[in-house]
Structures are given as C-alpha cells and as structure tokens.
C-alpha cells in the first residue's frame, strides 16, 4: 500500500507541523511567563550566606542533580518544597522563593512565593506541574532560587524531575511522536518503490460520434446511440417460446 504523492506530501507537512508545535510549546510558555528565564536555562548562582537548602518532600534536592537521579513526579502529584537558610542569610535580604521548570531553555512552569524581605529563614512552596503534564512527560530540569528584594538571584540550585504520565504514555507528545515514528519507518521501508518505473495515467480517449449508415452526422448534433434491437416476429407467425426447440426436420 502506498499513498499517492499529494497525500504523502500533506502527511509530511502535518508531521513537520507537529514537530514545530512541539518545539513552539516552550516558546509560548516563555512568552506567557511573567519572569524571563535565562537563555541557558540555568540561573546564575551567587554565594549567599546562611547555607540555604531546599527540601523536596523532606529530601535535599542536591540528591537529584543529574537526569539519571531525577525524582519521579506522578500525575497530578502535589509537591512540597521547603526553602530554608540560617540566620546568617538575613543579610541577603531574601524576598522571593522561586521554582522554575525548563524545557528547551525556556521556563514552562514558574512558581513564586513572595514574602517580606529579610523576615523569614524558612519558606514552604507547594507546586504542581499544571497543564503541561497533559502535553509532555520525561526528564525536566528545575531550578530552585532565592531572590532578594531588588530582584537579583542570590542563590540557586538545579535538579531534575521525571514527569510520569498515566500508564507511562498518556500524554499528547509521546503518542504523537510514536505515531510519527511508526509512519516514518513505514515510509522508509517502502521508499524503494520510488526506484521503479512510474506508470503514466491512461489518456482519456475522446468519444467518437457514431455515424448513420450512408450519411454523416450533422455537425453539432448529439451522438446518437444505436437503439437496442428486439427480435420481432413476422406477421402471421407465432412467436416461438423460449426453450422450445424445433426439430431439424420441420414440424410433423
């Protein structure tokens, strides 16, 4: 089975559109986010007094610093982070605890907790992935950062999470990508047919106007079809019934 060239071209165009859409999603999220992200996806980290730490459900996020050690986040799971630092960090004048999830260098999810600068040394932050979990799954980099009252990042740390879709596949991007990969593998397996001779479509023969016996059809006249002939009996004879055979010697 091979698709006609026009249909194959349209399917190819649809595939490119899907890939472009997949790449545009983080860009749209970047434009919609209030806080611009750094181009590299990693916020600048500066030394902050007070030895800040961030606990993810009681575990230090430094344990998830590589994609292989990413913490798994199930569908619709609410996560509780605890930003804490010692009293020595009061000089940093921290007023914002931020968590950002990056994809293709853009922040697809941002969560901020604002508070009076310099007044706390421990801030809880509850976070859910949001609508993006319906679109993608897999490993994503997150950045937990502390921002002072002037809007400058005074501390940040990167870690990784693995978003798990229901049944490990029920998200838009993986389903579309799998279908696309299967279709492209099929096209690749059947592309040898392109090396064969192309069959030219049969030319349409213009209908010829039948002519009457002994005379030509008048120009512009519609072609007349011969009427079906029906056997007619000569006057005075009985029409023979079907299936009735006449003996070769005549009637007796």
């Amino acid at each position, binding site marked *: 089975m091979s698709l006609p060239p026009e249909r194959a071209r349209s399917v190819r165009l649809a595939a490119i559109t899907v890939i472009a859409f997949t790449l545009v999603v983080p860009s749209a999220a970047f434009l919609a986010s209030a806080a611009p992200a750094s181009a590299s996806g990693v916020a600048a980290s500066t030394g902050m007094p007070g030895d800040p730490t961030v606990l993810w459900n009681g575990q230090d996020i430094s344990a998830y610093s590589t994609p292989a050690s*990413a913490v798994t986040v199930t569908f619709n799971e609410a996560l509780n982070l605890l930003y804490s630092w010692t009293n020595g960090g009061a000089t940093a004048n921290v007023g914002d605890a931020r968590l950002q999830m990056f*994809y*293709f260098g853009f922040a697809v999810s941002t969560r901020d907790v604002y508070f009076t600068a310099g007044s706390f040394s421990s801030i809880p932050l509850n976070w859910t992935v949001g609508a993006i979990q319906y679109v993608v799954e897999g*490993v994503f980099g997150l950045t937990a950062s502390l921002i002072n009252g002037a809007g400058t990042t005074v501390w940040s740390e990167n870690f990784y999470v693995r978003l798990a879709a229901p049944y490990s596949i029920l998200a838009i991007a993986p389903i579309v990508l799998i279908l696309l*990969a299967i279709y492209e593998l099929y096209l690749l397996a059947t592309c040898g047919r392109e090396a*064969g001779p192309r069959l030219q479509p049969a030319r349409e023969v213009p209908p010829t106007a039948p002519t009457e016996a002994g005379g030509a059809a008048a120009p512009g006249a519609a072609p007349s079809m011969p009427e079906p002939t029906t056997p007619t009996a000569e006057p005075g004879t009985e029409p023979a019934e079907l299936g009735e055979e006449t003996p070769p010697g005549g009637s007796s």
Partner: protein
Amino acid sequence: MSATAHGAGDGVVLGIVVPLLLQQFGDLDLTSLTTAIEYIVIGAVVGGVIGAVIGWGMGKLYQSRHSQPTPMKPYENP
C-alpha cells in the same frame, strides 16, 4: 523524487523525533536550548545520511526484484 531522496527525508524526520522520544522515555536532558538544538540538528543530519543510504539500498533491492526481462533478439535469416 528518487528512493534516496525519499529515504533521506524520512531519516531527517526520524532523526528529529528520536531525541524528543528519548527525552520523553529516557534520560536525555533537553533543558538547555543550545544542547537541545545540538541534539536535534545532529539527529537530523545523522538520520538523513542513514535514511539516504537505506533508501538507496531499498531502491536497488526493488529494482533487482522487479527488473524487466530482456527481450530476445529475433531470429535473423542469413
């Protein structure tokens, strides 16, 4: 379009899809923009080359299986 060009086109699309699938189901890190573009461009180039080779091979295989028999020469009287 030849079988080689078809195979190259299919390989390019597969080369782009594979890194995205590895991010979805594996441990490929596409957090950074430059790294992600590097993966996709490298995947597209490698996939295009491999796809072109596969397409060329598939074309040759198809031609060998569907080759027309050479007509016999008519007998010539001296």
